[in-house]
């Protein structure tokens, strides 16, 4: 726990108030930074011994119009997992690649590009990873409705309608909507 606080303190010292740090779980802390600090921070952490980039996640907070990128860093020496989070605009998602810092990021960025439509300038290989002949919007975005897509493309027999139903009340002034 001490080592944990130590690195968080260091980050605070190096990056100021813009980096929100908080211990989260046992051996797991989070650092929230604005996008412009992301690359310096990752570089700094790498130098501090956080050499294992477990993965890069993206969470679609569609209500807030933002993607949250989460870089999962692990330090073998400190035994600490850091969730480095940054928010980017959902409409025009662009993040500079982190390949110069973590070479292994190439495939993760490639996947995010395919699944969320995030652009990573500087990444040499952003070709589709999983999908072939894809015609929908990036599938992992919240506004992509897989069930609708399936019904249109594969003609799935939709059982959901007859699956199970119960009466719903008609509340006053709501005109049939629950």
């Amino acid at each position: 726990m001490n080592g944990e606080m130590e690195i968080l303190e260091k980050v605070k010292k190096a990056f100021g108030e813009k980096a929100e740090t908080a211990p989260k779980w046992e051996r797991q802390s989070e650092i929230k930074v604005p996008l412009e600090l992301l690359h310096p921070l990752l570089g700094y952490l790498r130098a501090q011994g956080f050499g294992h980039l477990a993965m890069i996640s993206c969470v679609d907070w569609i209500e807030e119009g933002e993607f949250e990128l989460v870089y999962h860093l692990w330090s073998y020496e400190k035994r600490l997992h850091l969730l480095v989070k940054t928010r980017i605009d959902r409409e025009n998602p662009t993040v500079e690649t982190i390949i110069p810092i973590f070479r292994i990021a190439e495939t993760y960025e490639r996947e995010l590009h395919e699944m969320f439509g995030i652009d990573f300038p500087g990444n040499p290989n952003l070709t589709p990873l999983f999908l072939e002949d894809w015609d929908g919007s990036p599938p992992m975005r919240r506004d992509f409705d897989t069930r609708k897509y399936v019904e249109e493309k594969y003609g799935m027999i939709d059982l959901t309608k007859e699956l199970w139903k119960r009466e719903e009340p008609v509340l006053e002034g709501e005109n049939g909507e629950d």
Partner: protein
Amino acid sequence: MERIEHFEYFIGPQHPGVTGNMSYHLWARGDEIVKIVSSVGYLHRGFEKLMEYRFWIQNVPMVPRICVPEPDVNEILYAMGVERLAGLEVPERAQYIRVLVLELARLSAYLFYFAGVAGALGLYTIPQWAIGDRDYILDLFEELTGGRVYHIFITPGGVRRDLPPGFKEKVRKVLKHLKDRLSDYDRLYFDNALFIKRTKGVAVMTKEYALEMGVTGPNLRATGFRYDVRRGDPYLVYPKLEFDIPVTGGGDNYSRVMQRRLEFEESIRIIEQVLDMMPEGPVITKLPNPFRWKIEKNDVYVRVESSKGEFGYYVVSDGSEKPRRIHVRGPSYTHGIQVAQEMAVGLRIADVPVFLFSMDVCPPDIER
């Protein structure tokens, strides 16, 4: 000139030399690989998307499909992630049973692995033996969980059922059988002169390279780096159990295989301890109503040591009945794509399948 020197060929998706449904596009000069590009996506089902459409509990049958040879790591990861977010306590007996299941799954995955590497080497007797022996473990699973391959047994809050009567004795019997057979394997396989000749010094991975490329698990330990999630970021009751982290440290195909061979014995040791130490008690905590279980907004990354490396789940909840996002980190993701693409260059054609099998690349967990 270049065009004449190189020729292209594919291994996979329909090819015995690839570890499942994926493919590699290879450029070879003579017998030497000069370029290799992996192509994945043959198994992409969009699990992460599907999980966002389902209740927390409904995802329990969903997750094991992510890694087919060793499905239980997914169950435990999902359960651990949800338990952390929801603040559920797991009874101790359930934790022991979970370790039992996980280690049995590790044994079966390693037997599969031995079979795979031996198959790639052409030693077809070993697959026949190893998968046959693995079936005894599957029988145990069937007895315990009701399913041979997809156990759907570890659920948030514990495990779905207690051990059936007489189960411990059956496990001990199978363990004894495996130990006996291990000497057979040693003689035919691990000590086989040709096996050593084919694998030693091939596809050497240095420790520095492995660390840089995010190589984990037995593949990392085979380069000489002593690290195991079970010790480094312990979960369940592993801190209470006694086991070593063997390290071979050659970084080549041979040490990768032998690394598993040594860990195989450690797993047997763990299971024996679990059987002795397992306390009595309940095996599951009461869960909230499955249809209305809401988890407050939070997120957590959980990781376990699978037979292939570090398996991790990033679970995000947003206060609703359904997960916001579940991101799966399969160990093969790095092993199968970037590492394979870089490491396979310079290998002989015949060594490529052996290398891929020795890395234990498992396409389903790359693609989800």
